[in-house]
């Protein structure tokens, strides 16, 4: 209770009852939305590339501009032309995360899938496996850890400390910060929208005119959250690309 307003606790905003299924494999709204996002991503690229035309229209336009964006803004900017082999992986990550995030803004749905830690954590673990395997394949199992831990130009006295920090970075900090960044951003955005919706509703009940200001702010915040949803998908993908790049080219 803040000034007579009843804000719902966090657990009420992100926890959904199980619709069907058992304890461990229970399916709720979030899981259904995740499946729907998978279907949308597959459908988008299937429909976009099924009958390609020279002058793209409709779905093909969307699919092509997405591919072009990931290619030019993410892969070429971080890894370079040789990174195009990782393009399918990064493109899938980007599209899937963006669609999962955008559920936050769809009326009557309004639940970002990534506001639960499970999916960001899983994707971070996948990225973790990818960059470690790429590093071991490119530099050898000993070479990879040697190149990441022993940085040339570091004074001998603090080299052990730096080596431990670098090892912790690739093993723990990178996947943890990837997962937590996406999760916390989406949760914060969701809570922000919920708070403003509650304020708007409460003020509309008391004075209709008083509700107009928070409503205007709510509309603005929804536009802002669209930007955040896009930006978080972009940052997750670009960081995955940077990590793969650091496995391909060790720092000299």
């Amino acid at each position, binding site marked *: 209770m803040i000034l007579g307003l009843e804000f719902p606790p966090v657990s009420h905003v992100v926890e959904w009852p199980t619709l069907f299924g058992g304890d461990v494999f229970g399916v709720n709204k979030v899981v259904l939305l995740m499946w729907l996002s998978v279907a949308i991503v597959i459908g988008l690229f299937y429909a976009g590339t099924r009958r390609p035309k020279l002058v793209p229209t409709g779905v093909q336009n969307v699919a092509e501009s997405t591919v072009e964006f990931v290619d030019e803004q993410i892969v070429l900017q971080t890894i370079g032309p040789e990174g195009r082999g990782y393009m399918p992986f990064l493109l899938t990550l980007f599209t899937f995360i963006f669609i999962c995030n955008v559920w936050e803004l769809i009326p009557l749905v309004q639940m970002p899938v990534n506001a639960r830690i499970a999916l960001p954590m899983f994707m971070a673990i996948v990225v973790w496996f990818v960059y470690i395997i790429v590093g071991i394949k490119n530099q050898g199992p000993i070479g990879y850890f040697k190149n990441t831990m022993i940085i040339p130009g570091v004074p001998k006295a603090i080299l052990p400390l730096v080596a431990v920090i670098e090892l912790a970075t690739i093993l723990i900090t990178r996947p943890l910060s990837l997962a937590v960044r996406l999760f*916390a951003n989406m949760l914060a955005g969701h809570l922000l929208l919920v708070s403003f919706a509650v304020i708007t509703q409460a003020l509309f009940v008391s004075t209709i005119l008083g509700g107009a200001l928070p409503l205007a702010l709510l509309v603005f915040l929804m536009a802002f959250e669209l930007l955040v949803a896009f930006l978080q998908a972009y940052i997750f993908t*670009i960081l995955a690309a940077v990590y793969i790049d650091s496995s391909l080219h060790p720092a000299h």
Partner: protein
Amino acid sequence: MLHTLAQQDPGELEAGLTAVGRGIVYGGAAIGPGIGIGLVVGNAITAMARQPEAAGMVRTTMFLGIAFTEALALFGFVLSFIISG
């Protein structure tokens, strides 16, 4: 005033202190990243204004810098939910 304090339910005081602690954790965690993001974006704008043709590269690096800086604030945000009375 002491009289009213004494009459309070002990659980109530604990809940209040938890709320204060959450506020301090998130507020404290947001100070450094706030300054850091300001520095990153400010310098990126300077770089873009000096060399508009390098704007694309600077923007990518700027987002990377923001992402790394922001992570600290977000750890604080998540930690503030983990704290419970």
